[in-house]
């Protein structure tokens, strides 16, 4: 499960090179997210722009990643590709997350706020 985190200004951006977050990798995704987000403060942006497909297990793993955050952390999503966006919309889980067009626009929010 290829997942990495970097600091971009005040944000943490987690990116993945996996093209599919599905039943075969859902548990690894959830576990890797937990280790990556441990101990970092503030807004964490999960950049899914390389992910072309997510199934309900993958969606559940993203929800689990949000639920396992520590106090002072938030998880936002960015770069949802069409099929991934469709799954979030149809299940109404798009209302649960803040979703940005891209990781760059998430950073743009921060700059505009000041």
């Amino acid at each position, binding site marked *: 499960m290829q997942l990495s985190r970097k600091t971009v200004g005040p944000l943490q951006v987690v990116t993945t090179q996996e093209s599919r977050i*599905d039943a075969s990798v859902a548990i690894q995704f959830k576990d890797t997210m937990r280790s990556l987000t441990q101990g970092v403060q503030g807004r964490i942006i999960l950049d899914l722009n390389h992910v072309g497909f997510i199934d309900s297990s993958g969606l*559940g793993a993203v929800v689990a990643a949000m639920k396992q955050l520590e106090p002072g952390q938030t998880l936002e999503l960015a770069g949802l590709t*069409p099929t991934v966006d469709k799954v979030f919309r149809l299940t*109404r889980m798009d209302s649960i997350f803040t979703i940005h067009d891209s990781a760059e626009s998430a950073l743009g929010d921060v700059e505009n706020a000041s």
Partner: protein
Amino acid sequence: MPHETSDKALCKLTVAKDEPNRMHLSVAGTNSGVRSALEELSEALKDRGCSEDTIGTVQIVLAELLNNVVEHGQLEEEQDAISTKLDLLGGALLCEIRDKGCPFPDARLPTGKLRAVEELERDLPEGGFGWSLIRMLTEGLEYNREDGGNCVRFMIPIP
């Protein structure tokens, strides 16, 4: 759990002779088998001119139905456990999925009620999405026990 050897195919796509829009996918009863099958099918539909949106919809529906067999079917054999017939017509993809797994409870498919946003916000569920996705994206969904196994038929409209 049966031992999965690497030389056995995760999935096999065959096309009917003289009928290029009639396909059969034999899928191993594992998450890897399902992934492999969806990737193969996506390529096959792309070759036949289906849009990205249609291919996405087909993958969403089949992922849920096939994963459901893997997770709940209590399959005795993994190899070629799931047999999928697909017929690509002008306005729809007709599908038939057969497996030798255990019957659905109450001999019928789950209703897949879509939960209200308030409930989702309160509960933050990690599952229970599959059947509402299936029902939203298909028509004519039906289930029968046939030949000692499950048979689920449905149609995915192609705009």
